[in-house]
């Protein structure tokens, strides 16, 4: 004789569907947030190298502004490199908006400083120091911004 217990259907082992569903909802919500927030581009070694290479080049150029003659060729070369770095960042699209805007501000600062040398003449030691401090800080901010981005693992 079969017992009453045996007559009852055995429960089918099930995964805790409620929990799975909750996580899936959470994932969907976060994915939606991801597209809304527009996560930034990943850390880019080329950007880091471009910026760290260009910073000392322009700082050395500023040292020459304390002398009589202005090296137009060096200024043109620095301007071209800055433009190339800007185009590289712009090419990454809207997700790289912040870095692109930083590069725009850096270019504007550089042009302002060049204009100051052209109009105002030879830079005094205090002026060289002040201009170099601000330009170096601008580069440092762009470099630090690249560093806070996540690695694409």
């Amino acid at each position, binding site marked *: 004789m079969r017992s009453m217990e045996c007559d009852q259907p055995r429960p089918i082992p099930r995964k805790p569907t409620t*929990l799975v569903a909750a996580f899936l909802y959470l994932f969907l919500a976060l994915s939606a947030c991801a597209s809304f927030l527009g*996560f930034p581009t990943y850390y880019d070694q080329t950007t880091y190298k471009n910026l760290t290479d260009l910073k000392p080049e322009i700082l050395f150029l500023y040292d020459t502004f304390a002398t009589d003659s202005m090296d137009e060729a060096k200024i043109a070369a620095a301007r071209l490199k800055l433009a190339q770095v800007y185009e590289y960042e712009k090419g990454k699209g809207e997700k790289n908006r912040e870095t692109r805007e930083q590069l725009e501000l850096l270019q504007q600062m550089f042009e302002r400083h060049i204009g100051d040398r052209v109009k105002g003449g030879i830079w005094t030691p205090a002026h060289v120091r002040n*201009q170099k401090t601000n330009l170096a800080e601008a580069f440092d901010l762009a470099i630090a911004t690249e560093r806070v981005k996540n690695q694409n693992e």
Partner: protein
Amino acid sequence: MRAKWEEFIDNLQDEAATLIKDDLRTLILHTQDDSNAFVQRQGDKLELYLNQLADGAITKEQFEGYVTDIRDLTKMQSRKMSVAGKASAQRLVKGITKLVIKGLVAAL
């Protein structure tokens, strides 16, 4: 004791300069007391530039240029903060995907 730049502004005959003196002092003190290192540095630089202007070490045009630089550096700092916030959220999403969805939920 009054700072060099304060004496400089006091000696200006321009009434507008005298009127902004207190606001300027407050601005410099607030930035120098700020807990954020970036803001502190800008406050220190502003005071340095004002003292250099008072000493005649820099021109009015150069001073204007430095203040414009500070404005643009502040804009750059805000872009950096924006990226840092977004990158932090990105790490959270990545962590949840990797650890929770692919790891924990798959193990259940």
